[in-house]
């Protein structure tokens, strides 16, 4: 999704790669109670003092998480695991207990106890991060190994070894039988640890990027104050420029955003889409303040979708993309749909008609639809925003609500500021007058 979500995922520094992958496999949250509960927990992690060392210790431990979902489900189905897999399960159990201990005073510590698993895999109780089928599991095994150690290389050694293997296999089978009863606990432990990793990383990201905690809207409104796009902001900062945050608000209606070229219209609507996704994934929100209306899905039509391999022209690709949005809006609403310059790839006369018609088509859908356009659309039942625009030689990116439907005519001024061929621009100016 080309709205900056990749940047947010990339700057989320979880201790293990599994945690991030696990998070991205989940669906967005759509239940208000679930979302509120999630942010409460995130708030508690944010409240933990970073200087206390607990967070650091937990993060270090969490870097040892391995993706053993497959191993756990095989255990549950009765398969006998090998030493390497048992080692991984033991590691998970030890990690679980260590993190559980570190977070013992944390209000939302929901890690299960893996003492039962450790009782099976760590008979000596020394919590060593290592494993094999210990002598202590079977006297028969201890004796067989003693005999093996006394023999030199050769046939007798090999025979003695085969005997050791047989006993090991039988011990292993029993171990797995006892363990499989605990596979739910192991599964829960793995998921919870991954969640904790993500919570801690999200809290860190909130501090680093200056994000805010959102409110779940109970009046179907989405209101952002001081909204910014973190990826775009980082690019600007690198160039020594400043990002101008914007304010915007809308309900379940169609919103058109007009304004000068390079005025940040596209970035603004992309950021609205970004923030909706972040909200329903439980991230901090890039804004000073945010009240967000929950949506069933987030749909985008942005950028040049022309795909040579499909044999589609830009226009066809664009139309198909919007068509898909209309269908999904009808079927799965309320959604957030964000459409950048619909019908831009055709003649202005039909284009204007298409955009006006789109506004009418989706106006009463019960979804929030944001679109940008350069066309003069006369639709009066649509909220209108315009970029403040080019004034005093600088671009003011802030949005203001506008009653006029007339698009600003600043293209020539902007072209001049870019030092585009003066002869060409002057001729254009003459044509307009």
């Amino acid at each position, binding site marked *: 999704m080309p709205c900056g979500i990749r940047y947010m995922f990339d700057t989320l520094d979880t201790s293990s790669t599994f945690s991030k992958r696990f998070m991205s496999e989940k669906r967005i949250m759509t239940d208000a109670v679930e979302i509120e509960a999630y942010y409460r927990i995130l708030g508690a992690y944010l409240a933990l003092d970073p200087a206390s060392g607990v967070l650091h210790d937990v993060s270090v431990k969490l870097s040892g998480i*391995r993706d053993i979902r497959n191993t756990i489900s095989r255990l549950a189905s009765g398969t006998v695991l*090998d*030493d*390497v897999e048992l*080692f*991984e399960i033991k590691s998970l159990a030890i990690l679980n207990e260590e993190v559980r201990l570190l977070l013992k005073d944390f209000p939302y510590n929901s890690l299960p106890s893996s003492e039962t698993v450790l009782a099976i895999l760590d008979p000596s109780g020394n919590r060593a*991060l*290592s*494993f*094999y089928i210990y002598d202590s599991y079977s006297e028969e095994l201890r004796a067989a*190994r003693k005999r*093996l*150690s006394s023999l030199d*290389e050769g046939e007798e*050694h*090999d025979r003695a*070894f085969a005997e*050791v293997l047989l006993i090991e296999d039988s011990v292993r089978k029993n171990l797995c039988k006892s363990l499989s009863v605990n596979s739910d606990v192991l599964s829960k432990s793995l998921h919870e640890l991954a969640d904790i990793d993500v919570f801690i990383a999200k809290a860190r990201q909130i501090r680093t990027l200056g994000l805010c905690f959102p409110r779940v809207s109970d009046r179907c409104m989405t209101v952002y104050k001081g909204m910014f796009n973190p990826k775009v902001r980082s690019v600007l900062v690198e160039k020594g420029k400043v990002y101008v945050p914007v304010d915007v608000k809308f309900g379940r209606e169609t919103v058109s955003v007009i304004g000068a070229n390079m005025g940040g219209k596209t970035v603004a609507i992309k950021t609205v889409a970004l923030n909706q996704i972040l909200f329903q994934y439980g991230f901090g929100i890039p804004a000073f303040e945010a009240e967000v209306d929950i949506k069933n899905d987030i749909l985008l039509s942005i950028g040049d979708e022309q795909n040579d391999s499909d044999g589609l022209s830009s226009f066809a690709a664009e139309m198909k993309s919007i068509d898909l949005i209309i269908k999904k809006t009808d079927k799965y609403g309320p959604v957030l749909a964000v459409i950048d310059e619909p019908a831009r790839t055709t003649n202005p006369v039909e284009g204007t008609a298409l955009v006006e018609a789109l506004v009418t088509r989706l106006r009463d859908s019960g979804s929030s639809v944001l679109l940008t356009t350069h066309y003069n659309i006369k639709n009066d039942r649509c909220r209108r925003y315009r970029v403040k625009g080019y004034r005093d030689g600088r671009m003011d990116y802030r949005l203001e609500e506008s009653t006029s439907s007339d698009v600003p005519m600043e293209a020539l001024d902007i072209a001049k500021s870019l030092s585009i061929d003066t002869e060409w621009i002057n001729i254009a100016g003459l044509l307009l007058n």
Partner: protein
Amino acid sequence: MPFIDRILKCKSLSIVGMEKNTGKTEALNYILGRLPSPLKVSVTSIGIDGERVDQVTETAKPEIYLKKGMIFGTAERFYRSRMLVSEVLDVGFENTSMGRIVTAEVVCGGKVLISGPSSAAGLERWNKSLDRYGVSLKIIDGALSRLSSASPAISEAMILTTGAALSANIDTLVSKTLFTVNLTSLPKVPDHVYSGFRNCEGGIWTMSAGGQVRMLEMPSSFSVDALEKTDFTDVEYLYVSGAVTERFLNKLRGVMKGGMLVVRDFTRFFVSRQAFASFMRAGNGIGVMNRTELLAVCVNPVSPAGFVLDSDRLVGMLREKTDVTVCDLRRI
């Protein structure tokens, strides 16, 4: 035990075979069998890169006998078919072409197939991870091969194995072996050159008399034409981070003006003795970033094809031309 004492003074050792079936396994088992028990030893071997996986099944890595207390690293699939009792200490996160690397400690001695990391970075990481187990001597089983980027030359010391498998002709065998022996004695570059080229990843780099390091616009030593366009007047050192081919060396000889060619280590040369000698005769120098001390050359006079060379003669011819310890392990 001609060189065991010298081995005990080292922290890391490579066993390198000039060719398969030159007695590398015997040398390794010989050494492992004679190391004193309290010494904490680790063993791994340089694995083979992805596309050559079939080569492993075709020429199975030798089985090594490990004693109680030794730590080893091998691919998961070989760990499963081990013939010893061992405790899993760690499982690598990276998936190599042969699976993940399992690190384990031997509980009851026996044999195991060892195939470890195949990349230079992987090998270094694994070696580093051993520090927490208190390993005093790290042994790497390697080969002079283009098949992997990992080089055995990251060790302090080295044992080279050679033999009839390299050549049926005793003179060819001796001269090829001596060439490699001489390569191992290439000098290490001065400290300022080492630090200058240390972080240069990939490609070819130059250093001027003033110590300035620049990268050449050449992807590798396989594209030699760009050498002609380079101005060598102020080039004191030329560092090739990858392999040096014969074509490259010959071309370089024509354009270099008395500077020094620098390579990572002696295993990066894939050139003939003649090309090498010509390069040196033209007044150029060669240095290495990493130098390994060659402790001994072990000779295996038996060829897999069935014939046996005269061991005394072979050992004698080698001893004539080098001060390095030479021996036939079967005769000790």
